[in-house]
């Protein structure tokens, strides 16, 4: 709000505005250039619908009479206020502000009128409900970008790197904040991300159960011979993940099982002489649900390897010993953060 005021005006938060055991959510002192000031009582809500406004207004007026010092005006603040709620708030003689930039501030003494327009649709809600999990490709894209790039990072930058729509991106970031997995300055950049926590939480919600989604194959001469064959063929629609990919990053990893994403698993299997088997598989082929798995892939010795964050989530959801191998990879990622985070 501070940067929307006219030249010479200022706004600062005032502590200790309270009375008879009641407190305001916030109180802001708005000062004109000549030093005159107005005390603004602020009520903060996550969501405000227009039907809620009359009752909120009544409670604010009541609270105002009980506080010391008494406020000169009152404001409703929320993450997002829709147009009809904004209209109703003004009708009730209140001011408003939301996190998308919608602002209405009308003061009598000193006289001030500021009005600004932000989003006209709730970027956190959009057509859907607020997120309650990291399921699906949108979350995967945002989480992968959050993991692969070190903070600080502005939200628009994260959304751009994620290649998701603004609204959908905001909903994932909102969920990350609510889970206390990232910290953001108010309306500012992401300053901290608990990347290991994000990864483990994402893996729990990840819809891909690899043991069920994968087709199982046998490379009868073992994986080393498969690598030789793979680096020799012109093949682009694939990506190596799982423990065999982890072995390219973390030297102690043992590659016994190769997990590939392949756009066309059948064709991939034929080109590499993989045999479909019920038991004794050493190769898993999965058709990717979203191209995000290919994001920030690397090429090593002629083989396309998934980024460490993708390998880790696949191992966490993988069969057999894979989850144990995931922990070893995560430990490596912790020790070598600069090696895999940009």
């Amino acid at each position, binding site marked *: 709000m501070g940067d929307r005021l006219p030249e010479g005006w200022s706004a600062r938060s005032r502590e200790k505005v309270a009375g008879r055991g009641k407190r305001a959510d916030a109180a802001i002192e708005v000062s004109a250039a000549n030093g005159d000031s107005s005390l603004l009582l602020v009520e903060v809500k996550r969501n405000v619908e227009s039907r809620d406004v009359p009752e909120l207004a009544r409670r604010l007026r009541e609270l105002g009479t009980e506080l010391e010092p008494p406020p000169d005006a009152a404001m409703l603040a929320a993450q997002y206020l829709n147009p009809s709620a904004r209209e109703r708030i003004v009708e009730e003689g209140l001011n408003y502000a939301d996190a998308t930039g919608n602002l209405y501030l009308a003061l009598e003494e000193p006289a001030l009128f500021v009005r600004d327009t932000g989003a006209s649709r709730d970027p956190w809600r959009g057509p859907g409900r607020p997120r309650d999990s990291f399921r699906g490709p949108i979350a995967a894209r945002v989480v992968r970008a959050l993991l692969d790039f070190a903070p600080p990072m502005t939200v628009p930058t994260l959304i751009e790197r994620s290649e998701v729509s603004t609204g959908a991106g905001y909903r994932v970031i909102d969920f990350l904040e609510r889970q206390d997995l990232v910290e953001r300055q108010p309306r500012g950049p992401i300053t901290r991300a608990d990347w290991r926590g994000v990864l483990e939480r994402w893996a729990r919600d990840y819809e891909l159960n690899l043991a069920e989604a994968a087709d199982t194959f*046998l*490379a*009868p*001469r*073992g*994986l*080393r*011979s498969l690598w030789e064959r793979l680096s020799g063929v012109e093949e682009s629609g694939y990506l190596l993940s799982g423990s065999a990919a982890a072995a390219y990053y973390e030297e102690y990893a043992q590659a*016994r099982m190769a997990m590939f994403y392949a756009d066309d698993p059948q064709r991939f299997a034929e080109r590499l002489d993989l*045999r*479909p*088997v019920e*038991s*004794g*598989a*050493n190769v898993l082929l999965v058709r990717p649900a979203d191209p995000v798995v290919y994001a920030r892939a690397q090429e090593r010795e002629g083989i396309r390897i998934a980024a460490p964050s993708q390998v880790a989530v696949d191992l966490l959801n993988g069969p057999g010993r894979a989850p144990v191998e995931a922990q070893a990879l995560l430990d490596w990622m912790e020790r070598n953060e600069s090696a895999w985070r940009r």
Partner: protein
Amino acid sequence: MNRPGDAELPVRTRAALLDALEALEGQLDALIVIGAQALYMHAGEADVAIPPETKDADLSVDRDRLQDEPLLDEALASAGFHRDLEHPQPGGWFNSDGIPVDLMIAEAMAGPGARERRGARVPPHGRGSMRRTRGLEASIVDNDQVEIGAIGDSGDKRSFQARVAGPGALLVAKLHKIGERSENPTRLQDKDAHDLYRLLVAVPTPALAETVRRLLVHSFSRGVTEQALSHFERLFAAGPAALGSEMAGRAEAGVGSPDVVSAAVAALAADLLEAVGRSSGGLGGS
């Protein structure tokens, strides 16, 4: 001997082979290196979970090239080789380091005598100088001249030009060993099936098929090769649950991936049979 324990066993075993070739230099033309040493030369680098096990040196004797002198027994004894005095075996010797060296001969060359009689009759060589073994006929047909020297950094400078059995001969010999013992399962060793898997992983199918076709054409090796392929079909190509496939997998229990090995050896066996035109619906590829 720079390193203690099993790690140096391949080095000591190779030295025992060189001891034998040196002792029998006068008969070198009649000797063919077979068994673990030959497998090690063809498939020592194969991508499998357990290292090759070479704890003895086996030689196949080609009767057609064997001279009357020097006598095998005398040559070995005078070079410091000794017999197992408690359990003497035809053809069985130990070098001064205690590593076993076995002289064997293809059954078709072993002279008169029932199959149960294990010593060969090849005068003037002694009755206990060679052990008759079915399946070694293939080693007479499929072998290559190889320069054989020491391995590791033992400082041993000896080197011999000698014949080493080819992969087809090793396949046939190993299949006879497993096939004969499959009728007496207490004598079966999982390692023998795993050796076969190692060979199949290391040698490309077309090359192995080429050798096997040659063995099928040659009258001296045709019979044993036909029989070996029928063992191969029944014990391996029939699928991952066939006796030989299971044995190969079991050899990796605890250190490797038994299921993968069983499936892989069955698939590779079916591939080879198909490549030599003996496919009869093995399940290995499905």
